[in-house]
């Protein structure tokens, strides 16, 4: 993949869309490793770290954030046209982020409720992932993704391969960490059995249920988990909320929540 002539460093950009900047911090928090990285690649555009050249040609671009405005749409198409390899990283860029909750609401109504002067707000009714609009070469899920994933992706790209990514469930890592299962030992709802690993089972290690920051795992059985949650005494609205978290608009979670709402409506009336 590294097509640059010998002696010339690959050019890297980090772009921000609708997001909290947390994914970019994954780069900034690398400390000395970031200096090593800066030796190996040329940081062409990374506004949060200094260099600004959003329209420059680059070999690899990391995209943080989701598409929420017309302007975002133009920008991402523009970026696609002058970037070799595009990595969408983080829950916003891969699934629309927490702000995609607007996809299930009346966005205009929210805008008028939240802003003093709604007429200044010009945003789309939805928050959508990059893959809805452009061809994405690699997705790194997570809120935020961890540094090993980001470095692993860059290393693999430099080798001309794709990084090894696991879609195993958080439960696998939870047990590797010797965390005690909060679902079994405390009856706490946990999304670990339907969420892909990457976080190191952070929340269960601290006695909390998983929030699905890393999005859906493979081989999902959301129906069974919902049924068990119901048995724990959760109401349909509570179960819906489990799926409408950080990765709410990932198709599998969006459908699971819709399913619960539909089933509940069928029962209720």
């Amino acid at each position: 993949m590294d097509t640059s002539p010998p002696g010339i460093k690959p050019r890297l950009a980090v772009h921000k869309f609708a997001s909290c900047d947390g994914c970019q911090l994954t780069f900034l928090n690398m400390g000395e490793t970031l200096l090593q990285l800066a030796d190996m690649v040329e940081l062409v555009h990374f506004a949060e770290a200094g260099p600004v050249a959003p329209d420059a040609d680059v070999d690899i671009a990391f995209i943080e954030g989701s598409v929420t405005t017309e302007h975002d749409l133009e920008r991402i198409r523009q970026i696609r046209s002058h970037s070799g390899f595009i990595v969408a990283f983080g829950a916003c860029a891969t699934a629309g982020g927490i702000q995609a909750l607007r996809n299930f609401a009346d966005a205009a109504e929210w805008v008028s409720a939240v802003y003093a002067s709604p007429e200044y707000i010009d945003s789309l009714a939805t928050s959508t992932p990059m893959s809805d609009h452009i061809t994405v070469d690699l997705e790194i899920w997570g809120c935020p993704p961890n540094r090993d994933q980001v470095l692993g992706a860059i290393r693999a790209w430099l080798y001309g391969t794709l990084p090894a990514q696991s879609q195993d469930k958080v439960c696998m890592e939870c047990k590797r960490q010797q965390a005690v299962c909060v679902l079994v030992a405390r009856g706490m709802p946990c999304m670990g059995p339907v969420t892909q690993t990457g976080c190191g089972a952070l929340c269960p290690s601290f006695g909390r249920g998983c929030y699905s920051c890393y999005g859906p795992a493979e081989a999902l059985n959301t129906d069974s988990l919902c049924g068990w949650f119901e048995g724990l005494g959760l109401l349909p609205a509570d179960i819906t909320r489990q799926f409408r978290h950080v990765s709410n608009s990932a198709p599998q979670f969006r459908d699971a929540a819709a399913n619960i709402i539909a089933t509940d409506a069928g029962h209720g009336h």
Partner: protein
Amino acid sequence: MDDGLSQQPRYFLPRQSFQSLIDQLTLQGFGCVGPVVRDAAIVFDQLRSVSELPQGTRDRQEPGYYRLENSESPRWFSWANGPQALKPYLFPSREVLWEGSVDEDGSLSFKERITEPQPLAVLGVRACDLAALAIHDAHFLNGPSPDAHYARRREQLFLVAVHCSHPASTCFCVSTGDGPAPTCGYDMALAELDEGFIIDAGSERGKRILDQLPLVEVSAEQLDQAGRELDAAQKAQTRELPDGPLNRILFQNLDHPRWDDVAERCLACGNCTSVCPTCFCASENDVPSLDGLTSEHSREWSSCFTEGHSFISGQAIRPDIRTRYRQWLTHKLGSWIDQYGRSGCVGCGRCIAWCPVGIDLTEEVGAICKDASHD
């Protein structure tokens, strides 16, 4: 008649002297690990003082359910088990096996990453844990290429077993023939009574430690009491595995409708295989450094419930939950017999309690065997 208790000379260690066992082991250079309450469960952790032991703690276990309860009992071992067995100590969930590097002249070199483990004494090991350990020994040590990492840790291990007097509802070691009394494979075994422990040594090392303890004679009444408790523990178990050649039955019923039924409930989360003390599957990965000059080769716990477990030539040959659950059960209770001469299940019940949706393998295999035809 065999009362299930060891035939070694037995002594009595009064409760107030139990600290001397921890002290002796520490003095002999062992790091001590024992049961402690952490995060609403009984887990093995570093043990320095008897005050850290779970006094009066009981565990209530059901499919998908584990809760601790307190009682007035002075006992430290009146519970069945927690989510871990010995597995994490001998077969860590993640470890670097070797590393590779590009040398100055461009050539490659490889170095094994072997660490010298500290001698470890584990207090509170159950009969099912010992049976599982024997299975792991067969897997990791007795093959054509023994696992050096496992072997080092195994050599350093000192095991203080405890008789089970309070099995959980999920336990079925009587049915698998692995408990509730430890019969071999330990350095020292304890049967707990309110006032202290009936104790015996199972090895020369165990005997040497035993000789240092302030032991008193064990009374006939105490032996009777322990025998009665063991008997009650056996009778309290309600779950069991079906009789019959499970390897044949399971493999002749690969299309049984029960596999579809369980696939509707199973999450393919791998919790069962992770808590199972005999499961040994791991994946191996290489993690290169950013500059690409060094690389670490590590292994971590995996499971037949993952996609990677059956990923061959660009696709997973067990793509769905049905075939993955079937792999777990047919290996654990079936082909394991052909591989290791016995079933891979020691009846600890962990996979039942720690399954987030309460799937009970005894029920699943029971349903398949009930109306199964086989020759």
